Every structure is written in structure tokens, then in C-alpha cells.
């Protein structure tokens, strides 16, 4: 993955966050406070403003840290520090690199997920973004271990994230606002898991047909 592909991925995520603003917010209105789409879109629009002016660089780590810092200072709520941490940790993992191998990417995403869990203390099955990110990382690593190409691995990662997202539907939330609802949170798809799926999907879509780079 080149710097410009990483840049494309971020822009693709911004575009899908904008396109799904209402959808994510509706999901959040069922079990949260009806702002997740608004939050993510506000953050990613700010990110676009920041990366446009980032100047000459090919440090993917710097790019991802900028995304993380921008999300931290513009998203607020639970998802701001969580997505912020995800990107900051990915940035640290990718620091100084102008090209990420498939393994580098998988390692960076795994580091991001670990950061989310350190910050948010959520386990798999707590009905959070962790439920989409964990299968995404697992599927990615499994695909690469199978010798899959980068684009194929990303596609399988995105599919796994989608599965994890859907699997949040029957769960009772144990973290975040939704947990106040207790049993009443079951039957609804978690908004954060949904935006995390969109994040991984954006990577897969960006790379579709650009295999092996």
C-alpha cells in the first residue's frame, strides 16, 4: 500500500461516512443518543480538511496520526477517542513507512484494535466496534497466512467485519450508552460496529483490482 493508496482509503472512508451519516445515526437512535453518524461525519470532514493541507510527505504513519489526532479533537463522544486511538496506533505501527506490505497493514490494524480495547475495555461480544474489528483482523491474518493476495485478504476481512457487525444484533450491550438499556439493547445492530465495517470495507474497495501492491 502506497501513501497515495492510504490517502485514497481515508478519503473513501470519509465518503462512506458522509453517505451513511443518517443510517449510522438511526442505528444510534435505537440504542444510543442518535449521533454516531453525525459524529463520524463531522470527524471525517475535518480529516479531509487536514489531509488536504498536509503538504509533501510520504509517511503513512504521519498521515494516520493526523487522522487520529483530528478525530480525537473533533468527534467527541465515545467514538472520538476510540477511532482516534485506532488511527494513532495504526500510525505508530506505520511510522516512517511510505509503503505498507499486506503484513504491515495487518499488523497496523491489529495494533489499532489493541488500542481500542486498551482504551475502551470492551471484549468481543460486548456489542461494540470491537465486534467488527476483531473478526476483520482475524480474517485478514488468516487470509495472509493462507497466502491470499492483499486485495483478496482485505475483501475477506471486510466480509468478516460485516459478519461481526450483524452478530451484534442479538447481543445485549455491555459497554457504552447502549448498556444502560440492558436487555432492551438486544435486537439492534451496534452503530460503532457498523462504522467499523464501513472502515474495513473502504479499504477493501480502495484496493479492489489493485492486487498485490
Amino acid at each position, binding site marked *: 500500500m502506497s501513501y497515495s493508496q492510504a490517502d485514497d482509503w481515508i478519503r473513501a472512508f470519509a465518503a462512506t461516512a458522509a453517505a451513511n451519516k443518517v443510517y449510522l445515526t438511526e442505528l444510534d437512535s435505537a440504542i444510543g*443518543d442518535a449521533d454516531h453518524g453525525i459524529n463520524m461525519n463531522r470527524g471525517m470532514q475535518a480529516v479531509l480538511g487536514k489531509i488536504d493541507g498536509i503538504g509533501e510527505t510520504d509517511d503513512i504513519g504521519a498521515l494516520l496520526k493526523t487522522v487520529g489526532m483530528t478525530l480525537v479533537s473533533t468527534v*467527541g463522544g*465515545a467514538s*472520538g*477517542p476510540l477511532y482516534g486511538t485506532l488511527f494513532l496506533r495504526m500510525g505508530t505501527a506505520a511510522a516512517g513507512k511510505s509503503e505498507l506490505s499486506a503484513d504491515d497493514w495487518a499488523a497496523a490494524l491489529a495494533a489499532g484494535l489493541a488500542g481500542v480495547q486498551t482504551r475502551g475495555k470492551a471484549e468481543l461480544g460486548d456489542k461494540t466496534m470491537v465486534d467488527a474489528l476483531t473478526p476483520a483482523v482475524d480474517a485478514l491474518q488468516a487470509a495472509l497466512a493462507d497466502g491470499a493476495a492483499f486485495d483478496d485478504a482485505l475483501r475477506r476481512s471486510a466480509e468478516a467485519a460485516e459478519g461481526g457487525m450483524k452478530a451484534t444484533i442479538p447481543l445485549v450491550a455491555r459497554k457504552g450508552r447502549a*448498556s444502560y438499556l*440492558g436487555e432492551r439493547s438486544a435486537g439492534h445492530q451496534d452503530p460503532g460496529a457498523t462504522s467499523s465495517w464501513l472502515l474495513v470495507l473502504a479499504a477493501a474497495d480502495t484496493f479492489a483490482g489493485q492486487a498485490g501492491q
Partner: protein
Amino acid sequence: MKKLINDPADVLKEALQGVAAAHADRLTVLTEPNIIIRADAPVQGKVALVSGGGAGHEPLHGGFVGMGMLDAACPGEVFTSPTPDQMLAADKAVNGGAGVLHIVKNYTGDVLNFEMAAELAGAEDIEVEAVVIDDDVAVKDSLYTAGRRGVGATVLAEKICGAAAEQGKSLAEVAELCRRVNANARSMGMALTSCTVPAAGKPTFELGAAEMEIGVGIHGEPGRERKALAPVHEVVEMLAAPIVDDLPFASGDRVLAFVNSMGGTPLIELYIVYNELNQFLSARGIEVSRNLIGPYITSLEMQGCSITLLKLDDEMTALWDAPVNTTGLRWGA
């Protein structure tokens, strides 16, 4: 939506402009990022208190900035956590060399953002301690959730710890005191009507004309149960019994009784609530030795009330009585 606002997107900005214009003598309001600080900050040698959270709970927190209470408040958008850059800017502005206490209401967003801010402040060599307030007994099974919400005890902690800081207590002492206030305080709220977040434009929840929500949160989070309207005598019982049972508060205890308006309930009703609460507690041998009655931690225009009880000891009582001079709470100064 019936509100005295212009564009819903400008609510926080314009309210802060109003605060700045009204209280320039005692408060400094900064933007980018938004913070409200004591005009005389930093107070050298004093532990600084910083709190914050989503807007819509006024006077909390900005109305409690001043001598004897907070050094800075970080307001987020309505019902939205502030971001770490706000807390970091606040920490830098108010740190008088004795460190900063973050008083954080227990909501995932608030906790995580304050946590990041503390890390950032630490990286700039500002000593920060954080205390998370979680006094809302309406949330059951808090072990399996994000935990109890932080509500009314926040006001009491800000006052009592602000007084201790003013008296020269160390950061460790003020933080310990803050944990003690939180450990001895319990709250529960109820709503007669919903509130409407300006950006949303419609009520946060629907409540029938003959219904009330018992155990509601300060963002209109659903409570323990939806019930038919009842006389305030019964409503107070529904709020006070779980509070008293939880700590538990026992015969012989002296308490501070805080009867709070959710924003839309007027003072005349709060005094009726207080009357019922006082009788409820007297019957259990619990003595109300201090009280606070009014709209101090609100949910926009929501009608309803919350009750907070704090078990007092002599130190907390003296600190409660100490002078305070903020726009929202003032005595002895």
C-alpha cells in the same frame, strides 16, 4: 421545537458568547477550543479543578467556575462529550503548579476523552488525577454495563473539593476527598416530559400524557420503569427508597439533601418535593443537615426532578459551608 435559539448549530457558541458578555468580570471564555476559566486563573499553588461534559446541563459546569469551586469547565456540544484538546487547554490554563483534578461524570465518552486529555497533559508535565463520579442508582447491574451514570453528586463534589483546594489541600488529598464524596452520594431522577436536543429537533423520547419515566438519565436516557403519573408523595418514595437502600443511609446519618430540577420544573414544585423528601427521611431517622434546591444539573427543558443524598461528615459539612463565588452557586463571598 420551541426554543429561544437561532440556528440549532449555533446553540453552544451563542450561549458561550452570552456567558462571556455577562460575566467578563469573573470568567474568561475561550473558543477554539471552548473553555470557561476563572478570570484569576491560574491560582498559584492551588490544586486546580477541571470538569466538563456535554452542554445542556447548565449551570453545570460553566456556572460552577469560580472561587471555591471549579477552575475551568470544558463544554461539549449539547449532550456530547468535550474533546481532549479542550481539557488539555484547560489544564494548561489553570494549573498553578499543584496539579489538576479532573472531575468526570461516568459516561463512556466523557471518561475516554478525559483519559486521553490526562495522557496529553501528563506528556506536558502537568500532574493530573481523575475522579469518575457514578452516583446514579437507577442503573442496575452496573458491573455488566458502562457502570452507573454520574449525575447530581457531581455538583456536590465540585463544591466540596473546590473548597478543599482553596484551603491548600494537595492533589492527592483533593482527589481522595472527591472519591469520598462520590462514595457517599447516591442519586436518582425522573422525568415528566422529554427534552429536545436542538440539533435533533424532536423529543429525545416519547412519554404519554399520563406517564412518567422513573430513573431517567440527564440526557433523557431511559430509566428503570415507565409508570403512570402519581402524586409526588409516591414519586419521592420511588426515588428516595432506592437511594437510601443502596448506600445504605441509616438512622442517625446526617445528609445533604439535594433536590434538583431537570430544567422545566419550577421552584414551587421542588419545594413540595423537598417537603416530601424531608418527611421520608425523618421517618427513617435520617437528619437533613444541609440542602440544595433548584435547577443545578439540568437536561435542557425536561420537566422532572432528581434527588441526591450525600452522607455528611464534619469535614464535608465545613467544606460545603465554605465560601463559594460562581455564577451558579454563591455564598459567603
